[in-house]
């Protein structure tokens, strides 16, 4: 059963050094607030998981939180590269970053298997590529019915899954809507989960493409209005495009990044 908690308390309780952690979200509903709290609490040796890591993962990698990244796309959306991510992979700064790279469909399949309690997912999409030469979490498998060779990918079951949603009800159920990614699979497959929400309501309204996560799938619900900033929460906030553009020069320069990091840790800016 979920329980309401402050974000600092939830991160302290559920995110430990060495954990596998996913802060999921796609285009909107990206819990920057949780990522920043993980940086503030100085977590180390995390394996970070996300289909489309963006600026918040760049910040966590630059802050030295991560030893490994599981991903399929890593960029500053609409702007360019994640330079802290690149610096870690290319130059080992501030520490080497191991990568476990998949395609979008491959990671979606890993999430789906994890959420379903299955040991692996299967897909045709890796055929012909050289991804299996580089990524250890891909293995050939023959279809037992047709003999066709396909790719098997192991389930993702992170220690902690973190998402942002629009609403929780008073019983701690959660609802999100708008462009949805793999938030549902992330929560269902993770051993522990934290959801930051915009607001608490008495009851949910039915919505097209709405995703409801029952309270028994969630450990902590944290009320953090604006917690997705600079991404947005559909029907609650607009995307702060200037933030993403402004991140580029900070990300490109280690000293500028360290200045940003100091300010963020002190709560001056996020």
């Amino acid at each position, binding site marked *: 059963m979920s329980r309401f908690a402050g974000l600092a308390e939830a991160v302290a309780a559920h995110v430990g050094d060495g954990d596998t952690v996913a802060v999921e979200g796609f285009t909107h509903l990206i819990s920057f607030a949780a990522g920043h709290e993980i940086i503030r609490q100085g977590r180390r040796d995390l394996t970070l998981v996300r289909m489309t890591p963006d600026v918040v993962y760049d910040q966590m990698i630059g802050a030295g939180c991560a030893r490994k990244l599981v991903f399929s796309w890593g960029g500053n959306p609409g702007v360019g590269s994640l330079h802290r991510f690149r610096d870690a992979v*290319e130059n080992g700064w501030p520490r080497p970053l191991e990568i476990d*790279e998949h395609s*979008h469909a491959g990671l979606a399949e890993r999430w789906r298997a994890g959420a379903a309690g299955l040991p692996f997912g299967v897909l045709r*999409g890796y*055929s*012909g590529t050289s991804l299996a030469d580089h990524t250890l979490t891909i293995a050939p498998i023959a279809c037992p019915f047709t003999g*066709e060779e396909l790719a098997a990918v192991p389930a993702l079951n992170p220690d902690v899954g973190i998402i942002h949603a629009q609403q929780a009800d008073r019983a701690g159920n959660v609802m999100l809507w708008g462009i949805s*990614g793999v938030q549902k699979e992330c929560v269902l497959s993770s051993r522990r989960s934290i959801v930051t929400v915009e607001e608490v309501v008495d009851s949910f309204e039915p919505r097209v493409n709405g995703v409801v996560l029952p309270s028994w799938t969630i450990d902590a619900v944290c009320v953090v209005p604006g917690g997705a900033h600079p991404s947005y929460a559909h029907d609650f906030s607009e995307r702060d495009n200037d933030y993403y553009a402004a991140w580029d020069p900070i990300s490109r320069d280690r000293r500028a990044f360290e200045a940003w990091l100091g300010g963020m840790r002190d709560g001056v800016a996020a």
Partner: protein
Amino acid sequence: MTTEGAGTAEGAPAAAGLDEICVVALAEAFRGDGEILGHPMGPVPVIAGRLARASFEPDLMLTDTIAYAVTGTLPWGAAPDPAAVECYMPFRTVFDQVWSGRRHVVMGASQIDRHGNQNIAAIGDYRAPKAQLLGMRGAPGNVINHTTSYWVPNQARSFAVSVDVVSGPGYDRVAALPEPSRRFHEVRRVVTELGVYDFETPERVMRLRSVHPGVTVDQAAAAAPFELAMPDEVPVSRVPTEAELHLLRSVIDPGGARKADFRTRL
């Protein structure tokens, strides 16, 4: 560069720029696709897809580049009018709908070889890359499950004897796969700043389909580190019609976003 002196198409304004010739070449890649999801990525391909639908490929399904399928002709960078939204197609469902061959992606290629193998993930040794790029993204999956074309604005830098990692497989690698795995694979076009390429040869290797106005066959060949297949006579790429130039300049891209890939040349 302009098409001055090319003079190959009747009624074509002499002022068509290289950017507009490339947009039309990419739009041509969609010709005949009909009612499938056209999924161009990046300004030049997106503008090309919108041009194709606004002119000769009206059944093409296009998005706002985020999650809505939209009707009408959406200007680059504009949000769709709610009345123009045909359906909502979030990331989590798109593969279910389009991996039956009913999609044509146009994307970039940091490296591409003569068989059409494409790399967008990393340059150099994969474990210690010289450049860690944005990642494999959708290429492993997309490329064998529907048609793909590539927009390569710097041919000499991107054409490679062999790619460092294969994100999107080409014809030689796909030939070895069993039928269900390769039934939808088609690398239709590669458009660069110099010309248009396809794989319409018996060996399925890259062929120079046309050179852009003002570019010689030798220039195109010199910017490829492998041997290009050549037709006996290499045509000149089609220049935009007046109607297409009007659509590009006044409707789809009045702000000139299509010029960004040509900063060093225009």
